[in-house]
């Protein structure tokens, strides 16, 4: 009759599954994830490159115990285990490496949508600031 953590078979299987997932997560740090397979087109070879952001978290736990309060001679036993996890992978093209007979060059990939959104945010921030300043100034002049 101990309250020690008892590791059961399904728990071990779950733990192994988590280990496998963790290994796959660590594989996101590999060079092959960022540089794609070279694409041959006549004399030119193109290598696409991308940025990868991977976030993951897992947890597993279990336990067992006995209840001797109701029946001290024959205590009831119970155990349980559970686990959970989540993650996200974000990938975005950054540039392409072009190798041709003329030489090797890196061509950047520009995401117009992202730039437009950032531009709108910056302009919105400035316009908001301008409105706030004007309103504050109007309030001061009213008080005077």
């Amino acid at each position, binding site marked *: 009759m101990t309250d020690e953590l008892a590791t059961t078979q399904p728990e071990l299987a779950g733990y192994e599954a988590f280990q496998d997932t963790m290994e796959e997560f660590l594989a996101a740090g*590999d060079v092959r994830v960022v540089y794609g397979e070279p694409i041959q087109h006549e004399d030119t070879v193109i*290598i696409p490159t991308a*940025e990868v952001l991977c976030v993951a978290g897992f*947890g597993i736990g279990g336990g067992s115990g006995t209840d001797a309060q109701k029946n001290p001679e024959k205590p009831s036993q119970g155990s349980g285990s559970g686990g959970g996890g989540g993650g996200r992978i974000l990938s975005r093209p950054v540039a392409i490496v072009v*190798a041709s007979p003329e030489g090797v060059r890196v061509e950047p990939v520009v995401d117009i949508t992202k730039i437009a959104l950032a531009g709108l945010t910056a302009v919105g921030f400035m316009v908001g600031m301008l409105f706030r300043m004007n309103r504050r100034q109007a309030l001061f002049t009213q008080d005077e």
Partner: protein
Amino acid sequence: MLDIENLVRSGETQRMGDLEITPQTNVLQIQLRGHHAGLIWNRPRAVIIKRPDGEETILPVRDLTRMIIWGMLAGGILGAVLIGLTNRQK
């Protein structure tokens, strides 16, 4: 509590004609010590080109989208500060 590593990794060298191309990446790894949780940010860093005569050239891979976005945001903040300063002077 946190294991933070910033590594530069080199990939397999690929031969394209007379040239040898070696890709390099910059990996930021953050792991919670004792936990199964973490973050990996893997991005291209440069391409090393080796010519038959032994000359090596490093071509950096720049993220133009990120540079423009940061520039715009910095410009927005600077613009807001300037608006605030000019309004205060009035």
